[in-house]
């Protein structure tokens, strides 16, 4: 139970925030932070590409990562379009002077389902990539990520 009443103005602020969140991607998303407990032990493809010589990425590993990315890319792009439509739909409802709570909840549910699918897909990609790497490769990447100024692994 929410201890404080939610003023209508707050709902409007949330609606605007939703739209702003969708339209301001770059600042929100960056490489995994060491403080992020979920992603700090996973390795983004860009990190692996940057340091592929340092970790001696094999051709098989490279091709496997390519296949994984290709598979996920298509799914995520479609989901992003769906998410955009659904967020607009929710924001539109929340922007009314009188909000139908059931309708708003229903639309929120759809947005969250799509968010969940995107997150799950992203996590699946990162886990499968990690599982392709040896413990030594993972250790090297962790070290290189923590030391971004290291010369080793920089592309020639």
């Amino acid at each position: 139970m929410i201890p404080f009443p939610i003023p209508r103005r707050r709902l409007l602020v949330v609606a605007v925030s939703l739209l702003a969140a969708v339209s301001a991607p770059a600042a929100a998303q960056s490489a995994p932070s060491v403080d992020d407990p979920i992603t700090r032990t996973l390795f983004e493809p860009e990190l692996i590409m940057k340091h592929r010589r340092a970790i001696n990425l094999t051709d098989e590993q490279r091709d496997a990562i390519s296949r994984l990315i290709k598979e996920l890319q298509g799914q995520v792009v479609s989901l992003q379009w769906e998410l955009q439509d659904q967020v607009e739909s929710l924001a539109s409802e929340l922007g009314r002077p009188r909000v139908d709570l059931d309708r708003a909840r229903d639309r929120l549910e759809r947005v969250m389902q799509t968010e969940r699918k995107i997150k799950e897909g992203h996590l699946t990609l990162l886990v499968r990539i990690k599982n392709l790497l040896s413990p030594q490769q993972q250790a090297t990447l962790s070290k290189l990520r923590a030391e971004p100024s290291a010369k080793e692994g920089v592309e020639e």
Partner: protein
Amino acid sequence: MTPDDDLDELLRHRFAGVRDADARRAPAFGEMVARARAAIPAEPVVPIEVRSPATRSPIAPAAPQRRSPWRWVAAAAPLAVAAGLAGIWLAPSRAADREFERLVSEWSRTERALNAPTDGLLAVPGSEYLRRLPALGSGAGATRRPS
């Protein structure tokens, strides 16, 4: 299954085969995009004229000195042959490398655009007060420092 279900099943099966055949037949995406971009009219190039402050006349680029190209061809021929052979040997690996780089760059662009619009709802109203609850048993007026 009803007769209609049977027909649906048959049509799905047949069309799935056509779908697979079409997928095999589809032209390479990268090439189509490259050709499309090449076909889009480019911005007109505006020539830039640089004037010398002293003479106020356009500074013409220096004409390159004329040299015979044939001496370079003679020197480079063996290297060209060796490079060609190496290229043939390395071509599949290089192509795979380029594909890898392309896919990773594309994924990075997509990933940067990922966001969870509903994260703003995690800022529950009143949470700023919850962070400053008085600590029990520590005397009147005492407050717990926000974590």
